[in-house]
């Protein structure tokens, strides 16, 4: 276990419930799993790997945690082709070059060794998000967003940081974190992450919320929505998610839909309104057609084919 070597830190949260309440105070409604794992991550000093469908608030979780702990959020957006110089650190070549030229003009007092020591010092180092998070004096939350977008080889860059909270720079030596930042990695699961990465993280799967929670989310996030409208919205969205769709409506889409309905001055969703506005919830023509068909169909004794919720005899 590497945790012995890590710097001591005061726990940020007292209990699971404290996490949940504080998240609620910044309008992030967590469930038991989310709050519990954030609490554990703090206690164990481990990063959290957050996976789940798009639009379920993975990134928002990191932002909210940063907000409640009063920490600075450092974000590394991953993309294909991300490399060391964009993620970790880079030497400021231009400045180094200037330094060398400047010393040439001076009397030949400075020996080569001096210059070498000089140009590979902190002054010439450009910190990138990962190194910045490690060197930060103030509390930080590090968010490594969409980590599944980098290639498998690049993932290895993260390993040292995630397990030991340190960065090795050949010219400078190893830089160890002064405090353990809370680290969130998010993934949309477009590819399987490497075992090595997963092993170092706590795993959190954020799924679509259940109806009650979704209703609460709508109530907190959408000003001016009535309780009954929120309830109807949550129920319709749940029904739509039960269909076999290319892309189920995400939480953010639910919120968009709720906002639209409020703007339209709707206080009760009837079939026409629902059908007319499904294009906010669903983004594929085939999905919209399917949902429209399902929402308008006479449901008397229906057994929808393929719906997992259908009771078996």
């Amino acid at each position, binding site marked *: *276990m590497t945790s012995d070597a890590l710097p001591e830190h005061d726990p940020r949260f007292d209990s699971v419930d404290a996490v949940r309440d504080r998240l609620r105070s910044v309008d992030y409604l967590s469930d038991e799993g989310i709050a519990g*794992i954030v609490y554990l991550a703090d206690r164990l000093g481990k990063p959290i790997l957050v996976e789940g469908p798009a639009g379920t608030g993975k990134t928002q979780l990191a932002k909210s945690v940063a907000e409640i702990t009063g920490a600075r959020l450092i974000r590394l957006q991953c993309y294909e082709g991300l490399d060391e110089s964009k993620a970790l650190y880079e030497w400021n070549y231009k400045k180094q070059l200037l330094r060398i030229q400047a010393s040439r003009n001076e009397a030949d007092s400075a020996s080569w060794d001096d210059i070498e020591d000089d140009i590979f010092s902190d002054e010439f180092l450009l910190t990138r998000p990962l190194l910045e998070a490690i060197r930060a004096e103030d509390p930080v939350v590090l968010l490594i967003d969409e980590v599944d977008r980098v290639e498998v080889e690049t993932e290895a860059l993260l390993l040292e940081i995630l397990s030991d909270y340190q960065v090795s720079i050949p010219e400078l030596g190893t830089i160890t974190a002064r405090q353990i930042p809370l680290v969130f990695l998010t993934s949309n699961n477009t590819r399987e992450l490497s*075992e090595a990465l997963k092993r170092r993280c706590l*795993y959190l799967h954020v799924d679509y919320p259940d109806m009650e929670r979704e209703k609460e989310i709508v109530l907190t996030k959408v000003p001016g929505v009535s309780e009954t409208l929120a309830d109807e919205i949550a129920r319709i969205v749940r029904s739509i998610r039960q269909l076999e769709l290319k892309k189920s409506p995400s939480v953010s889409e639910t919120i968009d839909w709720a906002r639209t309905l409020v703007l339209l001055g709707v206080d009760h969703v009837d079939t026409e309104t629902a059908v007319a506005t499904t294009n906010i919830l669903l983004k594929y023509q085939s999905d919209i057609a*399917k949902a429209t068909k399902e929402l308008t169909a006479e449901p008397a004794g229906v057994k929808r084919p393929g719906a997992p*919720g259908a009771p078996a005899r």
Partner: protein
Amino acid sequence: MSDTVIDPVADDDGGDPVAGDALVDLLNGFIVELREAGLPVSLTEHLDAMEAVRFIPLDDRSAFKYALAATLVKNHAHWRAFETVFEVYFSLRGAEYAIDPDAELAELPEDVESGDARDGAGQAPANAGSGEALTPEELAQMLYQALLQGDDAMMRAMARQAVRRYAGMEPGRPVGGTYYLYRTMRNLDLDGMLEQMMQQSREDAPEPLTPLEERLEHDEYENRINQFKQEVEAEIRRRLVADRGVEAMAKTLRKPLPEDIDFMHASRKEMISLRKALQPLTRRLAVRLARKRRHGRKGPLDFRNTVRHSLSYGGVPAEPKFRYPRPAKPEIFVIADISGSVAAFARFTLHLVHAIASQFSRVRSFVFIDGIDEVTRFFEGTEDIVEAVHRVNTEADVVWVDGHSDYGHAFEVFWQKWGTEVGPKTTVIILGDARNNYHASQSWVIKEIRHRARHVYWLNPEPRAYWDTGDSIVGEYGVHCDGTFECRNLRQLEGFVDHLV
């Protein structure tokens, strides 16, 4: 009750609940079982789990569960397997789950124990009988009320009652939980209740329900009934564990992970989880393949480009330039047997191949039983592959004589009709178990196809040990193929598709 929630040894009454060693042993057993179920749990993760539970108040069962899940399960597809093992291992621990009937009665919510059966809303008349005293009708009525109001505690109590009364569980009898589940459900007319509840809400509504409202109500009740069924299942499992012990139960309940489910023997439930697993798989595969294509920078040296770039280094070719590789996209012909025994396999493969069709220059599909039909048209112009596969199974014209597999005839017809369209860019994939019902094999067709095509592969959903037994003649065809692959589950299928591109 709090201090016994994860009392490490169930039958050790009392004792120190957090006795370190016992907890360690229990977790060890738990993790061994997870590994048996196929989850890759490493030593580090094991240690992490130990560490994690130290910070969790042990009386919080769900927090305990999430702590274990976060450290041990790193793939959402494995969640279900984890949950089953967890339920088995930790189901007996906790007073609210006590099996002892007396304790149970004490635990029944007040309004259940004393509630009037005809009015489950919670008034407490004198009829304070135990659950045993209820007639079946009263029980059904109470369940109906519980479902109608979505009362969780009541539903749990009802589930317990129903199992006790109807499942007829016999100690030591080696049957699986499904048998008891069936017996319990048979006595509770849940479909009827659903209807009744729908009727009720229609009456309660001030004006007639619109189809949308009706549908929403329907979904809501359906959801509650499912929840109730899960309670019943959990109750049966608890009782089985109490009867037979943790290890034995864990073994009986062990189910393959979605990617390991055998296509040919999947139950209806497993089919659903397979279908769910297929979607992310295709997405993953498509991304991976596209990436591979873009990043395979192993093209030959581009001499002209290198020289041109050498000018900026004073004529020294310091920066070698390579040609951008343009691997040819293969054209795919899928020929699938869709007779009963292998239909599921064919369906999955067709789905998968069409879902990643953009990775190929063209995909054409043919299905056969004893006649053969081209089904590419079903996939063209539709985004909904599920629908297309469904149409393949219902509309394709594949029966020639009797609807028993006849590979020989199907291949012959294929050769006559489409043989000339097989070209040097074509990869032909044949799906089937090659159980030919003792018809003529006509394996010369495969030989001819191979002469014309780039590759011919045969995917067989049967275990390799069964090949060439009985009427299986895969060997006869196999000699003419570039490769025969055993393809029994999603994992193997994924491996093959990866290999293909």
